[in-house]
């Protein structure tokens, strides 16, 4: 379970998070949405212990991330937004490192590593250095590492980034299975269609504040009593995004005008 209470974080004059509160329960996939700069990554950095909030608190499975960071971190599997890996390591070495630092028995590491690498179809590259891996392959290694210790909580920041379609479908099924097994999953993404399909509840963030949260069904019928067609409509409305079609039309018209003599 993830609990964020009144999280506030400022970077100089900029307020990245302004009293953000939400909960992700056991057996639930929580979609975490927001436009660029809304504060998603800051929230995730706080939840994973990468960043300390100015005020407020965050806890993982009942452990306060600031007061009991080791206990909290031990329960999290994390996939960062950018699949940054030590290019000198092989997937096998990387998973071995992750397993040992999480104090998994060697026998568990030995059995789960090939299982996970084969699952994501990179088993044949297990002993190749990651320097030559594509973004998608690196993402698969990170997903395998996040699942290695069978964590209670998964925090995924754009997990589909770089993945091919079969891998994306596979991941979706895995996440559903993990949810059914009682895991808590925080799924941060820009891809609204995917979140709409996979998330049980969503939190929408804009300018560092929570502007909407609830189940997808609740949120889509909240406005007028009748269900809206897509999460995208709600997202636009709540995050006060100016009509993208109009903006694109305006840009293209400008471009044509400047091209003409």
């Amino acid at each position, binding site marked *: 379970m993830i609990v964020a209470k009144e999280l506030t974080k400022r970077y100089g004059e900029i307020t990245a998070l302004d009293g953000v509160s939400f909960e992700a329960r056991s057996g639930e996939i929580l979609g975490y949405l927001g436009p660029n700069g809304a504060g998603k990554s800051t929230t995730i950095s706080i939840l994973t212990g990468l960043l300390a909030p100015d005020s407020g608190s965050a806890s993982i499975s009942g452990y306060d991330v600031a007061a009991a960071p080791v206990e909290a971190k031990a329960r999290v599997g994390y996939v960062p937004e950018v699949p*940054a890996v030590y290019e000198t390591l092989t997937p096998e070495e990387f998973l071995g*490192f992750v397993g040992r630092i999480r*104090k998994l028995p060697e026998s568990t590491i030995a059995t789960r590593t090939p299982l996970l690498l084969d699952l994501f179809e990179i088993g044949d590259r297990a002993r190749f250095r990651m320097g030559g891996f594509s973004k998608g392959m690196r993402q698969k290694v990170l997903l395998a590492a996040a699942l290695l210790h069978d964590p209670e909580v998964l925090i995924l920041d754009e997990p589909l980034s770089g993945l091919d379609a079969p891998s994306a479908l596979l991941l979706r099924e895995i996440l559903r299975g993990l949810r059914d097994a009682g895991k808590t999953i925080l799924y941060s993404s820009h891809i609204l269609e995917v979140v709409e399909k996979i998330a049980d509840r969503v939190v929408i963030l804009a300018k560092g504040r929570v502007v909407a949260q609830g189940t997808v069904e609740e949120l889509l019928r909240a406005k007028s009593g009748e269900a809206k067609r897509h999460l995208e409509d709600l997202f636009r409305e709540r995050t006060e995004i100016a009509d993208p079609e109009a903006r694109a039309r305006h840009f293209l018209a400008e471009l044509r005008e400047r091209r003409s003599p």
Partner: protein
Amino acid sequence: MIAGFLARLGIDGTSFRLLLGLQIRRDFEGSSPSTGSADAPGPIDDSPLLVNVAHNLSMATLVAYFAYVNFEPFGFAFVQMVVLMVAVAMALVAEFGVALLDPEVHAMLAHLPIPSRTVFAARAVNALFYVAVMATSWSLPGAILSFRVHGGSLVAPLAHFVASLLAALTSAVIVVAGYGLLARLVSPRRVHDATLYAQVLFSLLLFLGFLYGPSVLPSADGFVAFSRSPNALACPPAWFAAIAAGGPARLVTIAILAPIVGALVTVWLAAGYMAWLRSGAGARRTASGERANRGAGFVTRLFRRFAVREDERPSFDFAMIQMSRERAFRLRVYPLLGFPIALAVMATSMPSAHDRTLWTMLLLYAPNLYFPAVISQLPFTSSPDASWMWRTAPISRRSDVLIGAEKAFLLRFVASLFVVVAIFAVWVWGPIAGLGNAAAAALIACIFTVLDFREVADLPFTRGGSRTFSQIEMSHVMGRVVVLAVASAAQFYLVGTAPVTLLVLLPILVATFLGLLAWQRRGGLVAGAPAHA
């Protein structure tokens, strides 16, 4: 006018100006932090140019004063030219990216509509700027003092400065040409790896030069005769000293021609390298750069099994791998291997047993002088963004991580070096004195290693940038020179005269080492306060 001139050379003026401005800004500011957070600060600026300038000025002042006190005008200029040329060469040898365009930088620029000639020109002018700044900082104290050396001549400081610029330029083109030649001789794809071996060779020659050079150079008052001898023709610093001190015309002519010829050769060699980059081979390097992993060796597995605690194993394994694979680490550390090789060469070349003994003792104790430089490089990596995996890991005891890395260092560097050194010592002194002194020296190196790890404030291979050796605290090195000289002399005398003292000495050293390890494990010798990483 400049834009027109550049256009005639096929260089896009706007792109040239932008690229050069960007590179010079990076030189001054260092790379900006790419990772970091409130509780785990990002990388420090890596060797900004102004820090280097300040350091060069202080060193140059010492060298200039030493030369002023000890030598007549030609010797005064000669000594400074030697130091300047070596300093420039060392700086460029360690910085492949400054000397030649790095394939990774090329990959970032290649898709932009910038002619490759423009990229090369910007790179070359940036390198020239870097060299000019180095030359200026190194020559300033000498130029000021040359006013007095030459009896108040106003031309002397200018001549000293011009000579320094030409010397630095020549040194730089020799290094760049060396890189270009390397890229032609070996497969360009392997140029980075070949660079490592070239650097070890270069540092070996450099150390040999430092150790052996003074014995072949003329005495303090013999420099004038030296400048007129044929030997001076083969000694580049003498060419430039001739400009600064009004030496023979033939040396002055060579000094003026050397950078021009060197630059032409460099452009020719570098052009081949650029053509290789343009061909796309540089981009393919990444895709084909995957290599199958070789598992840990028998000794490593044995050491890991019996000497590394479970909590220390993640960082032990990680550091063992990174120390042999991390390119930035290897580039800065491997050249230091030239030092023990040079000492061994010196020891074997000595005719008398007394001198062989002296050089072998130096070989045994010198690691304590350069290991701090190696240890100071441990936190740095070329993949700092990947350090999130440390910072999100449930690490309860920071000391476990550092001790794991420390044990990897002890095995990778201390143990492997002292095995070779012990064999050498046995050859020089026989089995008892050889093994005894080598064992004692190895244990002392282990003790200093534990103490040096106090200074490692960051987790291994987690920070961007690097520390140049000039920025390393020299107090550690200088302080221990005296201690080591006295201790090694006493130890050698005791072991040589009464081998039985080994029975007392070795257990004391072992106990000290284990005691320090235990103290460290309790957090007593660990830099930085945080309980978790």
